[in-house]
C-alpha cells in the first residue's frame, strides 16, 4: 500500500480535465502588470521609473527586507507607470505597468532548450543565485525560496522533499511540468539537494498521475540521491507538514518549520524555476498556469509571462463560459474567487478555474448538529466546530488555547460540514485576531 498522511483529509473528485493538454506558451500581451508584492513578506522596491526601457529578465524591483523577493520584467518594452493593481483578494497593491515592445531578453540569459546538467556552483553561490532570480514557492504560498535554504544554527537537514502531489482538484500545471520538463526539473532537484547539503531527495507524487510517477522513476535512476514516492490520493497531501509525514514519516511540531525534523520542501515548479535560474540565468518571469473548468472549451496549461492578465489566459482557453458563477484564482479548495479579470498572473498563480453557477453556490447555513465530521477530517487534529464558535463569540483566548493557529486553511472542515457552516471563514478571523494579539503582547 502506498503511503499517505495518517489523520484527517478528504477525497474530493479530482476533475483533472486539463491533464492531457500539453504546456503551450501563451502569446505575449500588449501590456503586462507586474505586482511588487507577489510573495509572502515585504513587497519589493521598484528600481525603474516611467519611461525606462526594460528587457525581459531584467531586474525591476529589489528585495526589501529579509523575507522578500526580487522582481524581474517578464517582457521587453517601456515602463508605462508604477501604479496600484488589485490582487486576487481585491485589495490594491503597487505594480509596474510595462508596455510590450518585441521580445528581447537581457544579456546572459540562455533561452535555448539544451539541457545543462553539470552543476558548477557551490551551496552559497546557488542560494545567492536563487535569491537573485526572485524565486519563490510556486505551489501557491509564494514563500521566498532562498530563505528556506538559510538553515538556522543548530539545525541540520538530511532530506529534501519535492512536492509533486498537486492534491488540489482541477490543477494540472505541476503534472504537465513533470511530464514535459522532467529532465530540467530533476536537475533543479539536484541543485536544491546540493543547496541544502543533503544526500537524499524524495519526490512525492499522488497515484492519480501514474505517467509522471513512471517517467520520473525511470529518469531519476541516474541520480543516486533522488527517489520517487508514489502517494495514496488524499487532500491536503500537498501541505508541507502532511507531505513530510507521508514521505518520511516525520512530524513537524506545532508552530515549527520543516527544518525542525531535518527537511525542506519545495514544489516541482520551484525546482524547474531553480534550474532555469541557476543553469540558464533566467529569473522567474514565467510560469505554468492551468486554465480550466467543466464548461471551458479548451482546458489548457499555458506557459504564461508574469503580469499577463487573467482575461488573456481565459481568452486563450476559449473564453469565459456563459454560465460561469465564479472565477477562482488557484484550486477550488484553497483558491480565491476573483471579482476582476484584469488582474495579473503572479508567481504564485497555479491555476485559473471557472466554476459554473450551480457549483459555485454556497450551501445554506444550518445549525451545527455536532456530527463531528469537521473534527475527523481535520488533518491537524483541531476542533473546527469549536473554533468557529469561539470566533463568533470573540473568545480569542480559548481559540488560541485550542490551537487555531495550527490551522493551515485547507478547507476540509467546510467541505465536510453537512450543515454548510462557514467554518474556515471564521477560523481565519480567529487566526488573524490571535496573531494581532500576539504581536501586541510581543511589543509590550
Amino acid at each position, binding site marked *: 500500500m502506498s503511503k499517505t498522511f495518517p*489523520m484527517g483529509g478528504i477525497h474530493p473528485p479530482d476533475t483533472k480535465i486539463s491533464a492531457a493538454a500539453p504546456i503551450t506558451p501563451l502569446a505575449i500581451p500588449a501590456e503586462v502588470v507586474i505586482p511588487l508584492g507577489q510573495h509572502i513578506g515585504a513587497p519589493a522596491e521598484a528600481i525603474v521609473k516611467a519611461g525606462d526601457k526594460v528587457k525581459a529578465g531584467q531586474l525591476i524591483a529589489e528585495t526589501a527586507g529579509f523575507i522578500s523577493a526580487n522582481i524581474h520584467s517578464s517582457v521587453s518594452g517601456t515602463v508605462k507607470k508604477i501604479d496600484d493593481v488589485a490582487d486576487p483578494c481585491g485589495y490594491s497593491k503597487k505594480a509596474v505597468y510595462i508596455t510590450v515592445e518585441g521580445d528581447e531578453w537581457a544579456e546572459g540569459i540562455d533561452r535555448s532548450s539544451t539541457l545543462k546538467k553539470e552543476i558548477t556552483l557551490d551551496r552559497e553561490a546557488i542560494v545567492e543565485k536563487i535569491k537573485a532570480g526572485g524565486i519563490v514557492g510556486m505551489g501557491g504560498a509564494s514563500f521566498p525560496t532562498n530563505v528556506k535554504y538559510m538553515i538556522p544554527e543548530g539545525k541540520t537537514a538530511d532530506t529534501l522533499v519535492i512536492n509533486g502531489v498537486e492534491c488540489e482538484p482541477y490543477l494540472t500545471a505541476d503534472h504537465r511540468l513533470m511530464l514535459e520538463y522532467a529532465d530540467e526539473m530533476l536537475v533543479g532537484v539536484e541543485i536544491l539537494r546540493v543547496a541544502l547539503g543533503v544526500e537524499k531527495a524524495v519526490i512525492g507524487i499522488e497515484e492519480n498521475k501514474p505517467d509522471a510517477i513512471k517517467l520520473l522513476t525511470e529518469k531519476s535512476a541516474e541520480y543516486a540521491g533522488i527517489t520517487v514516492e508514489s502517494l495514496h490520493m488524499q487532500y491536503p497531501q500537498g501541505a508541507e507538514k502532511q507531505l513530510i509525514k507521508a514521505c518520511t514519516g516525520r512530524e513537524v511540531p*506545532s508552530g*515549527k518549520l520543516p527544518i525542525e525534523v531535518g527537511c525542506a520542501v519545495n514544489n516541482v515548479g520551484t525546482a524547474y524555476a531553480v534550474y532555469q535560474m541557476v543553469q540558464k540565468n533566467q529569473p522567474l518571469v514565467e510560469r505554468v498556469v492551468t486554465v480550466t473548468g467543466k464548461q471551458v472549451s479548451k482546458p489548457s496549461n499555458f506557459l504564461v509571462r508574469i503580469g499577463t492578465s487573467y482575461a488573456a489566459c481565459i481568452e486563450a482557453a476559449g473564453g469565459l463560459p456563459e454560465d460561469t458563477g465564479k472565477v477562482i484564482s488557484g484550486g477550488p479548495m484553497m483558491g480565491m474567487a476573483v471579482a476582476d479579470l484584469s488582474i495579473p498572473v503572479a508567481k504564485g498563480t497555479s491555476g485559473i478555474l471557472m466554476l459554473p453557477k450551480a457549483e459555485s453556490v454556497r450551501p445554506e447555513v444550518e445549525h451545527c448538529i455536532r456530527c463531528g465530521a469537521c*473534527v475527523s477530517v481535520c488533518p491537524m487534529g483541531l476542533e473546527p466546530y469549536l473554533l468557529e464558535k469561539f470566533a463568533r463569540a470573540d473568545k480569542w483566548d480559548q481559540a488560541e488555547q485550542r490551537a487555531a493557529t495550527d490551522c493551515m486553511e485547507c478547507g476540509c472542515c467546510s467541505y465536510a460540514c453537512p450543515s454548510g457552516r462557514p467554518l474556515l471563514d471564521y477560523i481565519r478571523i480567529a487566526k488573524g485576531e490571535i496573531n494581532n494579539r500576539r504581536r501586541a503582547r510581543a511589543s509590550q
Partner: protein
Amino acid sequence: MWAVSIALIPAFVASVTFFGPRALAVLAVGVLSCVLTEAFIQAFMLKKPVSVSDGSAVVTGLLLAFNIPVSIPLWMVAVGGFVAIGIGKMAFGGIGNNPFNPALVGRAFMTTSFAAPMTNWRLPLVFDGSTGATPLGIIENAASTGMSAIQSELPGYFDMFIGNIGGSLGETSALAILLGGIFLIARGLIDWRTPVFFLGSLAAFTGIFWGIAPESYADPLFHVLAGGAMLGAWFMATDMTTSPMSRNGRIVFAVGAGLLTGVIRLFGAFPGGVSYAILIMNALVPAIDSHIRPKRFAQGALHEKA
C-alpha cells in the same frame, strides 16, 4: 437525517411483521406527535421557519416508538412524543443543541409516568401475541433461582437474533438493526467505534460475571442480543448531537454506556438499562468533549514541549 430513517426501515418492517398492525399505529402516532410538536413550537412559539423536513423529528418519533411495547395506549405515545420533542429537544434550542437523546427523554418520561403499560410486553404474533416477559425480565432473578432453572423459558439465540422474542417494538430483531447499522456505517453517517465499543464493553462486563458464576449470570452473547442493547448501540448512542465529537471521545462514551448498561442490568432495579446508561453518558458528553480531545498532528512533540 433522512438516511437514518432509511436505515430504520428494516427494523420498521421487522416490528410490523412481528407485532402486527397495531405496531403500525404506535409508530404512526409516535412520528406524527414528534413532527407536529416540532412544527407547532417552531411556527407558533418561536415564530421561526419550520424545519421538520430535515427528517430529524421523524427519526426521533420512530426511535421513540421502537422503544415502547406494542400494547401501549396510543395517547400515551402521543404524550411521549410531545415530551421527547418539546422538552428533550426544542427546550434546548432545537436540532444540534439538545444534550440528551430526545427519544430516550420521551421514553424515560413514559417509563416513570406509565410504569405498568410500559412493561406490558407482548410476545410477537408469530408466537401467539400473548402477554409474556422479555428475556431480560426472565433472568431478572437469575442470581437467586439459578440459570438452569429458567433455561427452558429463555428463547434460543436464533430467535433473539431475528427478533422472535418479547420486547419493545423495534428492539427485538438484532438482524434488522444490524442491517440498518451497516447501511449507516457504509454511508459514513456513524462511527463504527460507537456500536463496537458499546457492545464490546457490555459483553466484556457481563462476560466477567458469567465466567465467575455461570449459574447466576447470563452469558455475554445473551446480553448483547437481549433488550435494547442492539437498538441503543446502533441508533441511540450514535446520535450525532448527543455523542462526543472526537473519535477517542466516542470510544470513551461507548465504553461508558456499555459498562453502565451492564451495571444496571446486573445490579439495578430495572431489567434493562440501555436507555438510562445512554442518558447518563449524554450528560457527560460536554465533559468528555472538553477533556478528551482529538489527537493533534505531531501530538508527540506537544508532550515533549510540555
